[in-house]
């Protein structure tokens, strides 16, 4: 029966009660309570069901190492499963629900697994569920999936706001306990920027709680003085409620700030810290002893019992038994005895101990038995009595002691996770029975230097006196290693020196436990891993610690083995008969404690997910009902439907308006790269497959770019502005890629060429004016003479439209008479509106990228990305004319000579006309010849111009198949037959575009 004391609790504010609901029951707690302390205050000791056997679980600890008390907290968009009740501060009207049980926490149907647990030993699922084969998908797996998984997943989108924050610091101190505070005081005022992260909402850690027992009030003054010193020094910045969750290469550290104490909404931030040196002061975690029935609610770590008492004024029970292998745990029973709680017996597994605390406990009338441990625990959903047995032997019960709370302490495990994340190795300390940081194999920074120093409990130094002795000395050594010349730090040691005798490491008791008892000795409480499971793993050959972990799922639960790993390794070593340090340990991986996926996404979610690049004409497109299509990061107008037009209608209207009148296309996303210098021509000759150096000023030439493997990866028109400058246009998706490609060649290969390039993609917008009436439209602006002589095909002029400077290219992607107008982006919208207004009488229509695709397909022009897929050469596209024979060398030339790039069975670009003109070949369908695919369709549309379907495709030795009919299989039952023709369906002589 857990309850609240009338007074006490350093963390709670008894004036402010907090109402909350647990599984529908309305309960009360105080401001400052954690959900766990509030539950205990309301005698809610049964809090969860374990993962595999659905055994009843109670609160085991008071921190983030909690394996049992996982709750679903919040509602609607703020609901979150699997939260440790020991970590979450209680809030008004908070809704808390336990998990993983049906129909209720008290009566869980699935606890029948526990009844038949003998059939569900470790790894049983590898040995069965194999017959009948289909049953796994329809019967066994759905059953297993519904039974497993702890909390329910949230159903609504998350309203929480997360942020990423960058921070650079010379020294990062991880942990604000005695070691952390002393290190900060020692390092301050030496010209170093220091950051200290503490996961709790106050700094001080363990020694604040310990200072109240027996020691006079000296620590309070010492604590106030320390905080005063740190607050005054301006080079120390402290972050509370911030847990360091991961150490990465080159001093990159992740810390999760979850500020529950602030009045603003819980602020969740991921701190990305770059630290030159890190000081690990993460303390240690108390370890349970593994004894029969050690998983019943009412059993808690000794120091956690004291934490709940001193921090929240909560009693785990009023008749408590302690079993321990160290002296430190006695503080718990002495504290309880001071409050009149009945301590029937203390079972000390050691043979004896002379520590004064033993005398003090006996003086208070506490019965202490040495060499004894717990042989069994009675109680259905709560501990009600314990059976005493000797540490040696198979555990026959000597005496039954009724009790309603059991405190356990098997010693302390240094918290070495962060040390091991990035290269730090560990040493097994056989006397103390734990792994600690190996000073010879430390984590290393960028220059291979040691960049982490472990101090205090996480390095195996537990007593406050020793910490106060060693930390200043270690910091002065660090300062000299970092060549910081400044005064040595010395401080008087306020702690009394009571050397703690080396505790005898103890893990699983009784030593000779019977087979039956071993099946009730739990190592991992959440995944129900028992001593017998590890024995089975060893028996079946899973001897390596990694194999044993994966076979039994030991330490794979949400607490990642914080309270179970060391016990598990020891039991494994006993079964293998090998010393523990020969066994090794499993890998510590980030995050130290689970962090929300939304936090990892940070502010770059919802609106800010992947920037949308918008052209200067985007607003107009938006107002004119454009359908958008993502092209790389841009959004381009795909089509401009009018009224309730279907897509087909829109596309044919847009295509026909270009064929008959005049169309306007926003092609501002085109890449525009200026290449300037005396060697510009020579450089472009190396980049393109055709000659560019012979291009005359004022003229344009279409160019194809291949990579070294000979495959086409971009194309576009190159215009020669003057003898020193070319302006290369690239595809929209390829703009940044091509710019980087050219910079790479200039900087790393041909750095002797006198050439510079500038990426002007967004300096200019580009508007295509295409159609028979395009010249007439542009002529309405007095200042320009666009006759065929003045501006022949593939030429450009620079002029003005009203007062807007434009460069008009006579180039055509639609096959019509067409111009592309380059204009400074700031005036793009103004020019676009002028053209729309002037074009009214020519029935001008904007057209989108899909209409453009149809227009160019009608001409048989290729689109990089549709006709090419990274494995296509110019020869495959039938563009031998664009591959210069004269040039000595260019990128791709060597590859063209490779055997496979010249083999006869290569796929070649062809036009494809279906016999039934109304049938449109589906996207990507394949031509089939006696059951084998011999090519595929790359572009396929219904051509409004030709009133029939057209398609382009890459077919094995396609050129020699001109005139023949091929079968295109479009489904297992249906094929379409089509004739192979020349890939130019419209005005093949090009009279329109040249006119």
């Amino acid at each position: 029966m857990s309850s609240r004391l009338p007074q006490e609790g350093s963390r709670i504010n008894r004036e402010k009660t907090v109402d909350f609901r647990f599984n529908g029951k309305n309960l009360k707690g105080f401001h400052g309570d954690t959900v766990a302390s509030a539950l205990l205050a309301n005698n809610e000791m049964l809090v969860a069901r374990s993962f595999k056997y659905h055994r009843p679980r109670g609160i085991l600890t008071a921190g983030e190492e909690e394996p049992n008390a996982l709750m679903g907290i919040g509602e609607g968009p703020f609901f979150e499963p699997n939260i440790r009740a020991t970590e979450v501060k209680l809030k008004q009207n908070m809704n808390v629900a336990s998990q993983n049980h049906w129909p209720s926490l008290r009566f869980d149907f699935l606890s029948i697994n526990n009844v038949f647990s003998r059939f569900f030993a470790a790894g049983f699922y590898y040995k069965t569920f194999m017959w009948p084969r289909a049953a796994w998908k329809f019967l066994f797996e759905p059953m297993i999936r519904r039974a497993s998984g702890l909390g329910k997943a949230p159903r609504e989108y998350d309203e929480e706001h997360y942020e990423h924050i960058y921070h650079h610091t010379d020294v990062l101190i991880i942990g604000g306990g005695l070691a952390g505070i002393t290190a900060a005081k020692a390092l301050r005022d030496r010209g170093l920027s220091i950051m200290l992260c503490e996961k709790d909402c106050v700094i001080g850690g363990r020694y604040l709680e310990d200072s109240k027992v027996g020691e006079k009030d000296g620590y309070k003054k010492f604590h106030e003085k320390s905080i005063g010193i740190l607050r005054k020094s301006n080079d120390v910045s402290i972050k509370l409620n911030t847990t360091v969750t991961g150490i990465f290469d080159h001093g990159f550290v992740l810390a999760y700030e979850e500020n529950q104490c602030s009045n603003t909404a819980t602020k969740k931030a991921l701190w990305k810290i770059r630290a030159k040196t890190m000081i690990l002061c993460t303390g240690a975690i108390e370890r349970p002893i593994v004894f029969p029935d050690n998983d019943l609610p009412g059993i808690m770590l000794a120091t956690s019992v004291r934490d709940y008492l001193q921090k929240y004024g909560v009693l785990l029970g009023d008749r408590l038994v302690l079993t321990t292998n160290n002296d430190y745990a006695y503080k718990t029973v002495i504290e309880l005895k001071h409050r009149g709680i009945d301590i029937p017996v203390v079972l000390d597994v050691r043979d004896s101990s002379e520590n004064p605390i033993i005398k003090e406990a006996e003086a208070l009338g506490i019965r202490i038995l040495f060499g004894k441990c717990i042989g069994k625990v009675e109680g259905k959903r709560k501990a009600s009595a314990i059976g005493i047995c000797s540490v040696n032997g198979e555990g026959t019960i000597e005496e039954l002691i009724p009790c309603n709370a059991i405190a356990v302490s098997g010693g302390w495990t240094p918290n070495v996770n962060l040390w091991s994340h990035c290269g730090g190795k560990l040493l097994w300390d056989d006397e103390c029975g734990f792994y600690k940081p190996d000073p010879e194999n430390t984590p290393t920074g960028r220059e291979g230097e040691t960049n982490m120093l472990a101090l205090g409990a996480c390095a195996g130094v537990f007593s406050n006196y020793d910490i106060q002795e060693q930390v200043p000395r270690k910091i002065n050594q660090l300062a000299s290693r970092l060549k910081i010349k400044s005064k040595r730090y010395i401080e008087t040691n306020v702690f009394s020196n009571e050397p703690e005798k080396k505790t005898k490491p103890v893990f699983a008791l009784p030593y000779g436990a019977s087979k039956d008892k071993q099946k009730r000795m739990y190592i991992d409480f959440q995944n129900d891993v028992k001593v017998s499971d590890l024995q089975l793993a060893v028996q079946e050959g899973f001897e390596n610690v990694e194999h044993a972990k994966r076979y039994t799922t030991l330490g794979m639960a949400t607490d990642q083995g914080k309270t179970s790993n060391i016990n598990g390794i020891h039991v494994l070593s006993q079964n293998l008969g090998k010393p523990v340090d020969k066994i090794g340990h499993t890998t510590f991986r980030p995050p130290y404690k689970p962090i929300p996926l939304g936090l990892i996404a940070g502010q770059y979610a919802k609106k800010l997910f992947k920037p949308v690049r918008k052209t200067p004409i985007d607003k107009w497109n938006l107002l004119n009902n454009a359908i958008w299509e993502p092209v790389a990061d841009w959004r381009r107008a795909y089509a401009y439907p009018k009224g309730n037009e279907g897509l087909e209608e829109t596309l044919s209207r847009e295509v026909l308006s270009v064929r008959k009148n005049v169309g306007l296309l926003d092609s501002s996303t085109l890449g525009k790269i200026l290449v300037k210098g005396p060697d510009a021509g020579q450089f472009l000759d190396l980049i393109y497959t055709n000659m560019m150096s012979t291009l005359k000023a004022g003229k344009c030439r279409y160019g194809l770019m291949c990579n070294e493997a000979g495959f086409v990866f971009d194309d576009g028109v190159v215009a020669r502005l003057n003898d020193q400058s070319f302006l290369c246009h690239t595809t929209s998706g390829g703009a940044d890629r091509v710019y980087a490609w050219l910079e790479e060649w200039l900087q790393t290969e041909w750095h002797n060429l006198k050439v510079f390039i500038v990426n002007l993609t967004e300096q200019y917008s580009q508007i295509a004016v295409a159609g028979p009436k395009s010249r007439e439209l542009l002529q309405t602006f007095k200042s320009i003479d666009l006759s065929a002589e003045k501006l022949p095909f593939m030429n450009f002029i620079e002029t003005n439209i009203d007062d807007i400077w434009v460069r008009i290219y006579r180039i055509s992607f639609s096959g019509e008479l067409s111009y592309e107008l380059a204009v400074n982006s700031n005036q793009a919208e103004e020019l676009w509106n002028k053209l729309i207004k002037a074009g009214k009488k020519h029935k001008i229509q904007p057209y989108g990228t899909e209409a453009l695709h149809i227009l160019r397909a009608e001409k048989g022009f290729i689109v990089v990305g549709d006709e090419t897929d990274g494995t296509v050469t110019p020869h495959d596209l039938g563009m031998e004319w664009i591959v210069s024979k004269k040039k000595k060398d260019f990128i791709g030339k060597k590859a063209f000579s490779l055997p496979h790039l010249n083999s006869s069975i290569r796929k070649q670009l062809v036009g494809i006309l279906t016999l039934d003109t109304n049938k449109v070949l589906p996207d990507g369908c394949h031509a089939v010849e006696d059951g084998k695919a011999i090519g595929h369709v790359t572009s396929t549309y219904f051509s409004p111009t030709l009133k029939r379907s057209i398609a382009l495709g890459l077919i094995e030795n396609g050129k020699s198949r001109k005139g023949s009919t091929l079968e295109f299989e479009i489904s297992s039952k249906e094929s379409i037959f089509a004739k192979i023709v020349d890939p130019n369906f419209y005005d093949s002589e090009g009279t329109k575009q040249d006119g």
Partner: protein
Amino acid sequence: MDKIKGDTFVDVYLIGSIKSFNIRVDHRDKKSINVIKKNIEEKLPSIQNATERNGLTLCWVSNDEYLLLNQKNENDTLLKEFQKQMNLTTGVAENTTDLRVWFLIKGNRALDILRKGVPLDLEKSKILKSNFLRTRLGEIQINILFKSLDEILVSVLRSHKDYMIEWFEVCTRRGTEINFDL
């Protein structure tokens, strides 16, 4: 200059375009460098810095690249001449006014905003008044020109304008300041 709306802990103004030139200099001969020295600035800015003289700001972008900003219209004629001379050398001076859009961040927590997206060390002590940094903010490239620690000019590609405005709206909300606890 309209201010980004919202209850923010720092003021952000959208400036729009500033007349600018992308400059590339050829170190093989001193011609292109001398054109800059003669017309713009005798002492070229050092690495990661910018120099400012009567409305002309010359920013170091790379070992052979500068960004020239002109915030006074009287300099137009001078700059036209500069561009003509420059393009006679093997260097480049290309008008890139329309390429970028500029924002002004004002307030003593101006640096805090950048620390939510820029991976650099933006500690007050490490920043010089004349710094010009080109780096990453979230997923886009950004230029940062320090007028003072409380007044910072930043620019992004014009196509990222709306994204940048939304980024500022999200990251400058009051209550999301970066602060320490002790």
